[in-house]
C-alpha cells in the first residue's frame, strides 16, 4: 500500500543534497568523478517499499544532482523495507550494506557495480567516521567473543596443536603402486625437517593478503587501446581473438617473481599474498570497500593507495561489461535474474566464475606447448578458408600459448639474474637450475619432476590469469607426477641420495602448495556471509583407480599426504578416492590419520558410487574412472570435461515454503511461484497431492535457475571466452570451438541443491502426522510454522520427537530423501545448458546452508526461522544417537540422483585416552563400511566443541585450525560468528 511521503523523505533529500554540494564544490572530491575514459555517469534511486521515500542521485558530467523521483532509466535502485531500515543504513559502514540484503531489509535492483560506486563516493565523505565505527565494532566483537566463549583452561589448544608430534608408521608392500617408499607414511618427517619450508609457512600465516590490481589494470590498458566490443577500426571483435590478444599483453607485461627459497618459479601476482581481481565478474563488488577493506572485521586485506586508485579508474570501464549486467541489458532484467538477486531460492555461481573444472595438465606438461601449437596449426590447415570463426578460435589459442611461453622465458631470465646476484652457493645452483627449467618448460616435454612441477605451475599461473581462481582444480596430480618420480629414482643408486631425493620432492610439493596458497579469490564482505572462508578451492585428487581400473595409489599419493599433514593449509583442497576391494587398508588408514592430525582434510570419496553415478553422463568407463574432484567435491572427467560443476544452487526449502503458501514466499513477501493449492481451502486431500505442489514449485525454481545460468553462459562466451582453457580441455582444438561455446568432449553444468535433510524431515512430518496418523491437520501445522512455533510448543515438540528423521535408520525417511532428490534430478535432466550439455545434480552446500537458512521461515520439521539448514545432505543431529544410523542412511541414498556428488559432514571427537592407533582404526572402520555400503563422500571435523569455542575467543592460538564447511576447508578463525556456531552445533559423535 502506497503511503504519503514521510519526514524521512525530506531528510534523505537533504542528506543527498549535502553530499552533492560537497562533490560539486570541493576539487579534492570532484577528481573522483572522473577516470581515464572521462566523467563517470550513472544514477541511483532510493525508495522505501511503502512509498514514504523516493529520491535519486544523478552523477552527470562531473556534477551530482538530487532528483525528487527515481528516473525510469536509473542504473540501480535501493528499495528499503521501511523508514527504519533507511535510518539504520546511515549508521552502518559500506561493507555492511550488502548484509542488509542478506537480512532481507533491502532489495537492490539494477547494476550492482554502480551501487558499489555510490558506496565508494559515500565512503569518501564518511571515510574517517566509518574507520572509527569499524575499529570500534572490531574491538567490541573481540571482547564479546572472549566473554561469551572464553575458557579458563589455558591448555585447551594444546591437544589439537600437538597431534602432529606422534605419527604412525605405514606398512610397506600393501600398495602395488608404491615403488620406493619404505615407510609410505613418511613418519620420520615433520615440518621441522624442512627449515626453509617452515620459514615460508610461518611467514604465510603471519601475512595479510593484499588486493592486487596488476591483472585487471594490464587487461584494461589493452582494451582501452584496442577496443572491447569493436576494434580500432570500428569492426566488431571476434571475442576469442580479443581475449587472446589482451591475454598475451598481460602475460608479456606482468611482473616476473621468484620467491626467496622457492624451488618453483613464478607467482600469480607480485604481492606476497594476493587477491586477484576479475572485474568482469565480481571485481567491482569491492568498489565501495576500497577505502575500508583493510579495516573490516572478517578477512581484511591490505590495499595500497595506488591499487585503490587504479581500481577506481578501471571499474567504470567494466561496469556494463559484467556477466550479470550483460544479461540484465540483453534480456531486459528477466524474472529469473530477479529471483537470483534476492538470493533466497536460487543463486547463480556462474556470475562469480565458470572455472570449476579440471584442465588437461598432463598434456601440457608431458607434451609441451610448442608441440600443441603444432597440433593447432595442423588443425587450421585442415579447415577451409571461409571457416573464419573456427580459424580465429584456433588462432586465439596459439596467441595465448605464445603469451604463456613469453612469460616462461621472462622467468628464465629473472632466475639467471637472481643467480648472478646470489652469494649462497646452494641457492645459486638452484636458481641456475630454475633458469634452465624455465627455458625448457612449458614449451617442451618435462624430463624430470622439477621440470614437471614448474611446468604445471607456469601453466597454472597462465590459466589463473585468464579465468577466475575459483575452483579451477589440478585434479590427479599423483598420477601426473608418479612417472617422473619413478624415472628420476631409477637414475639414483646410492641409498643416501635416494633419501635426499625423496626429501627434495617433499620440499618441491610443499613449495607448490605455498605458491598456490599465495593467490586468493576476492571476498566482498557479503561473501563472508554467503561463502564464509571459501577460498580458491584448488582441488587436488589422490588415489582411487587408473583409467583401466587398477590401483592408482603410488609413492606420490603418500608424498602429497605428507605435505598435506605438514602444512595443514586450506588450499589446495585435498580430496582422496577410495575404491573398495582395490585400494589398501594401509592407504585408507593413512587418509584417516591425516584427517585426525589436520582435523579435517582430505575429503574422502567412494569410487564405486561415484563411478556408478557419473556413468549416466559418459559411456566411456575409462574416462569416468579418471574423475577428479573439483572445487568442493564435484565430479569432473579429467581434462576432457567443461564441467562448470558449481554453476548454480537452489534452496529446496524455498520450494516447500512456496508449496505451503500457494506459490507465495512469506519472508520475501513475494508471490512468484505457480498457484499450486491453498491449505486454507483444504486443497490437499492426501500426501501425494501436497508433494505434487512442492514438485511444481521446485520445477519453477529449477526452470528459472537454469534460464539465468544459460543466459550467464552466453554472457561469458561473449565477454570472456577462454582460449587457453580451451587448449587445456580435450575436444576444443578438434572442434575448433571455445569451451565456453561447447568445444569440450563433455559439456555438463553442475548444480548444488541445499536443504535435502530439512525438506525430507519436513515431508515426513506432513506425511505421518497429517495424512497417515491424522494427529494434526495441515492447517494446524501451517499455523504453527507461520508463527515460528511460538504459540505451539506442544506441536513443536511433537514434530521433533514423534517422527523418524532421515538419518535415524528409518527406511521410510530414506525413501523420502530419495524421492525429493529424484524429483530434483529429473527436473534438471529435462533441461540443457547453453553448451548443449546436461545438468548434473549435487547435494552439498558450500556455506549456503547458513545463508539460505537466514532467508527461510520455520519448517514442519521443527527447524525455526532464520536458522541454518544441515550442511550438505547431512542428517539432523537429533536423527539418531548412533552414528552408524547416519552412515547407513546416507549410504542408502541413490547415487544416480547425485551425479554432482554430495557432502556428508561428520564431527567425531576422539577420546583423549585412546591411542592414535585406536582412533585411526575406528575412523577406518566407519569409512570402509560406509564405502562398502555404497557411500559416495564423507568428510570429517575431528574436534570437540570446547576447543572450537576457545578458538572463537582466542583466534591467535588457532591460526591454521582447518575445518570442513560443506565440501571445502576453511580456517575456523576466519569464519563469521554464525558459521562458527553452526559448526559447533553440528552433531558430535564421541569415538
Amino acid at each position: 500500500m502506497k503511503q504519503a511521503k514521510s519526514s524521512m523523505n525530506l531528510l534523505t533529500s537533504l542528506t543527498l543534497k549535502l553530499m552533492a554540494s560537497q562533490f560539486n564544490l570541493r576539487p579534492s572530491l570532484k577528481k573522483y568523478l572522473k577516470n581515464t575514459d572521462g566523467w563517470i555517469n550513472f544514477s541511483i534511486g532510493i525508495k522505501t517499499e511503502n512509498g514514504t521515500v523516493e529520491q535519486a542521485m544523478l552523477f552527470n558530467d562531473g556534477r551530482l544532482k538530487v532528483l525528487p523521483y527515481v528516473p525510469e532509466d536509473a542504473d540501480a535502485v535501493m528499495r528499503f523495507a521501511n523508514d527504519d531500515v533507511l535510518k539504520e543504513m546511515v549508521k552502518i559502514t559500506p561493507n555492511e550494506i550488502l548484509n542488509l540484503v542478506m537480512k532481507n531489509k533491502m532489495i537492490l535492483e539494477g547494476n550492482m557495480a554502480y551501487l558499489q560506486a555510490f558506496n565508494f563516493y559515500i565512503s569518501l565523505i564518511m571515510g574517517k567516521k566509518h574507520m572509527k565505527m569499524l575499529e570500534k565494532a572490531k574491538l567490541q566483537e573481540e571482547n564479546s567473543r572472549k566473554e561469551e566463549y572464553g575458557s579458563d583452561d589455558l591448555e585447551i589448544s594444546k591437544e589439537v596443536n600437538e597431534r602432529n608430534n606422534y605419527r604412525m608408521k605405514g606398512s610397506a608392500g600393501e600398495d602395488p603402486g608404491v615403488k620406493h617408499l619404505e615407510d609410505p607414511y613418511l613418519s620420520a618427517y615433520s615440518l621441522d625437517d624442512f627449515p626453509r619450508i617452515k620459514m615460508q609457512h610461518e611467514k604465510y600465516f603471519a601475512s595479510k593478503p593484499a588486493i592486487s590490481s596488476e591483472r585487471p589494470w594490464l587487461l584494461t590498458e589493452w582494451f582501452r587501446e584496442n577496443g572491447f566490443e569493436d576494434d580500432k577500426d570500428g569492426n566488431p571483435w571476434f571475442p576469442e581473438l580479443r581475449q587472446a590478444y589482451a591475454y598475451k599483453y598481460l602475460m608479456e607485461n606482468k611482473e616476473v617473481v621468484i620467491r626467496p627459497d622457492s624451488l618453483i618459479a613464478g607467482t600469480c601476482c607480485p604481492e606476497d599474498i594476493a587477491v586477484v581481481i576479475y572485474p568482469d565478474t565480481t571485481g567491482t563488488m569491492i568498489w565501495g570497500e576500497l577505502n575500508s577493506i583493510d579495516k573490516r572485521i572478517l578477512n581484511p586485506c591490505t590495499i595500497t593507495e595506488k591499487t585503490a586508485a587504479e581500481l577506481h579508474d578501471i571499474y567504470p570501464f567494466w561496469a556494463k561489461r559484467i556477466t550479470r549486467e550483460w544479461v540484465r541489458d540483453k534480456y531486459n532484467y528477466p524474472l529469473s535474474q530477479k529471483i537470483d538477486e534476492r538470493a533466497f531460492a536460487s543463486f547463480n555461481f556462474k556470475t562469480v566464475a565458470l572455472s570449476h573444472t579440471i584442465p588437461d595438465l598432463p598434456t601440457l606438461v608431458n607434451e609441451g606447448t610448442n608441440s600443441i601449437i603444432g597440433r593447432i596449426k595442423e588443425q587450421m590447415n585442415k579447415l577451409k578458408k571461409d571457416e573464419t570463426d573456427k580459424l580465429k578460435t584456433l588462432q586465439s589459442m596459439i596467441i595465448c600459448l605464445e603469451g604463456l611461453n613469453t612469460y616462461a622465458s621472462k622467468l628464465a631470465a629473472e632466475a639467471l639474474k637472481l643467480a648472478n646476484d646470489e652469494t649462497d652457493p646452494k641457492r645459486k645452483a638452484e636458481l641456475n637450475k630454475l633458469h634452465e627449467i624455465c627455458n625448457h618448460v612449458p614449451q617442451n616435454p618435462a624430463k624430470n619432476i622439477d621440470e614437471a612441477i614448474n611446468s604445471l605451475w607456469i601453466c597454472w599461473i597462465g590459466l589463473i590469469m585468464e579465468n577466475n581462481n575459483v575452483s579451477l582444480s589440478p585434479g590427479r596430480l599423483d598420477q601426473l607426477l608418479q612417472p617422473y618420480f619413478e624415472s628420476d629414482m631409477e637414475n639414483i643408486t646410492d641409498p643416501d641420495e635416494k633419501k635426499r631425493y625423496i626429501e627434495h620432492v617433499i620440499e618441491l610439493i610443499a613449495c607448490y602448495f605455498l605458491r598456490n596458497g599465495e593467490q586468493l579469490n576476492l571476498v566482498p564482505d557479503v561473501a563472508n556471509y554467503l561463502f564464509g572462508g571459501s577460498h580458491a578451492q584448488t582441488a587436488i585428487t589422490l588415489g582411487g583407480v587408473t583409467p583401466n581400473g587398477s590401483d592408482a595409489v603410488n609413492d606420490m599419493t603418500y608424498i602429497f599426504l605428507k605435505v598435506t599433514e605438514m602444512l595443514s593449509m586450506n588450499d589446495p583442497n585435498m580430496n582422496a578416492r577410495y575404491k573398495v576391494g582395490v585400494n589398501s587398508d594401509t592407504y585408507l588408514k593413512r587418509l584417516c590419520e591425516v584427517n585426525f592430525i589436520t582435523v579435517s582434510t582430505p575429503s574422502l570419496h567412494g569410487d564405486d558410487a561415484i563411478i556408478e553415478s557419473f556413468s549416466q553422463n559418459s559411456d566411456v568407463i575409462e574416462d569416468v574412472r579418471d574423475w577428479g574432484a573439483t572445487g568442493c567435491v564435484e565430479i569432473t572427467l579429467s581434462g576432457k570435461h567443461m564441467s562448470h560443476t558449481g554453476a548454480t544452487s537452489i534452496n529446496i526449502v524455498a520450494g516447500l515454503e512456496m508449496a505451503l503458501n500457494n506459490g507465495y514466499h512469506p519472508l520475501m513477501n513475494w508471490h512468484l511461484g505457480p498457484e499450486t493449492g491453498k491449505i486454507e481451502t483444504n486443497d490437499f486431500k492426501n500426501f501425494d497431492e501436497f508433494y505434487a505442489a512442492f514438485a511444481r514449485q521446485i520445477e519453477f525454481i529449477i526452470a528459472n535457475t537454469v534460464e539465468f545460468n544459460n543466459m550467464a553462459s552466453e554472457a561469458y562466451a561473449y565477454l570472456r571466452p577462454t582460449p587457453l582453457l580451451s587448449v587445456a580441455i580435450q575436444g576444443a582444438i578438434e572442434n575448433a570451438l571455445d569451451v565456453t561455446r561447447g568445444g569440450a568432449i563433455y559439456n555438463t553444468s553442475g548444480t548444488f541443491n541445499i536443504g535435502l535433510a530439512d525438506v525430507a524431515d519436513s515431508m515426513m512430518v506432513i506425511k505421518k502426522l497429517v495424512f497417515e496418523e491424522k494427529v494434526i491437520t495441515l492447517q494446524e501445522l501451517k499455523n504453527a510454522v507461520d508463527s515460528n512455533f511460538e504459540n505451539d510448543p506442544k506441536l513443536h515438540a511433537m514434530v521433533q520427537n514423534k517422527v523418524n528423521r532421515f538419518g535415524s535408520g528409518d527406511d521410510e525417511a530414506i525413501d523420502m530423501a530419495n524421492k525429493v532428490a529424484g524429483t530434483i534430478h529429473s527436473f534438471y535432466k529435462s533441461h540443457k545448458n547453453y553448451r548443449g550439455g546436461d545438468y548434473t545434480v549435487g547435494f552439498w552446500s558450500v556455506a549456503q546452508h547458513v545463508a539460505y537458512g537466514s532467508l527461510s521461515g520455520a519448517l514442519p520439521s521443527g527447524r525455526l526461522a532464520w536458522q541454518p539448514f544441515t550442511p550438505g545432505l547431512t542428517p539432523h543431529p537429533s536423527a539418531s544417537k548412533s552414528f552408524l544410523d547416519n552412515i547407513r542412511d546416507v549410504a542408502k541414498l541413490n547415487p544416480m540422483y547425485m551425479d554432482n556428488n554430495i557432502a556428508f559432514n561428520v564431527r567425531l571427537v576422539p577420546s583423549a585416552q585412546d591411542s592414535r592407533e585406536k582412533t585411526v582404526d575406528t575412523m577406518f572402520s566407519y569409512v570402509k563400511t560406509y564405502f562398502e555400503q555404497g557411500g559416495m563422500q564423507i568428510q570429517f571435523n575431528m574436534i570437540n566443541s570446547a576447543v572450537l569455542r576457545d578458538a572463537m575467543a582466542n583466534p591467535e592460538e588457532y591460526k591454521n585450525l582447518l575445518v570442513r564447511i560443506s565440501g571445502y576447508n576453511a580456517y575456523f578463525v576466519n569464519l563469521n560468528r554464525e558459521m562458527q556456531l553452526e559448526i559447533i552445533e553440528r552433531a558430535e559423535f564421541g569415538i
Partner: protein
Amino acid sequence: MTTTQLLILDIKGNSLDDGPGIRTVVFFKGCPIDCVWCHNPESKSNEVELSFDQTVCIGCDTCLEICHLDCLSRNNPYYIDRNTCDLCMECTETCPSGALSQVGKLMEIEDVVQLILKDKPFFETSNGGVTLSGGEPTFNMEKTSKLMQALKKEGIHILIETCGFFNLSKFKELIYPYADMIYYDIKIMDSVLHQQHCGVSNEIILNNFRELNRDYQRGGIKVLPRTPLIPGITDTIENIKGLVEFYHAEGVTKTELLSYNPLWHEKNLMIGMKNILSSDEKMTKFADVKQEQECRRIIFEAGIEG
C-alpha cells in the same frame, strides 16, 4: 512373555568401550543382585516400567488429560503414582516431548537378531561384535542362549558382561559354548560387605570365577575380571588389596578398573526409586583422582596389567 521373547532395556550400536572393535550392546532388563550404586537402575527390575524425565517435559499437560487412572500429578515429586498406574502406556504414546517413556520392551529373539545384523558390516571392518550386558544377560539363560546361538550362526563375535551370580553348570551348558569372551565383574572381596552393598554374598560369584578362569588357563575362552571403582565401597585400599590377593591365588594377570561415573542418580528419580547414595556428596561427584590413581598403582605394583 513367550519363550522366544526377551525383555530388552535397550540395544545400542556404535559402542567403542565394551570390548574389541565397534560393538552393539544388548542391555537385558532384570538382575539377580542389587548393587546400591547400579549405573542402570532402570535395568534391575524384571518388569516393564514407566519413566518420567522432568528435564525434557514441556509442561503441556497432555498426559494429565489422557491418564484414565489419574495417577499423574505435578504435586507428586516422582510425578507418577506407581501404586495406581497399570502401565497402560497410553501417556507415553501421546507425550509430545518424550518425557514419559516406557522402560523395557519385549522383543522377539528374531527381531533382536535382525536389528543387530544391520550393524554387522561395521563388526567386520573393526573386528567388533555384540556385547550382552544388562541388567544381567544370564538372568534367563535359556532365552539368552537362543539369542547367542542365532548370532553365532551369523558368525558374530559375542562378548558377555556378567555379575557372575549364576548357576555354573547351566552357564556351561547354555552360555559358555556360544560366547567368545567374558567380562566378569568382581566388585567386593569381603563377603559381608558384598552382602550389604549388593544384596547377596560373593561366594557363588568367586567360585564361578575360579572355575571359568581355570578353563581360560586351559585354553578356554577369555575371562577378564573387572571392578567398578565406587567411592568408599570398592575403591578402598583393603578391597583392592583383597583383589590382588585373589588374583595372585588364581593366576590372574590382567584386570580392568572402571572409573566412577556419577551420572546415574537422575535415572533413579525417573523410575521412582529412592536411593540413599543420592544424598551422599562423594557419590554425586566424579571420583577423587588421587584415590583412583592409588588403586591403579596397587594393581600395577602387584604385577597385574590393569
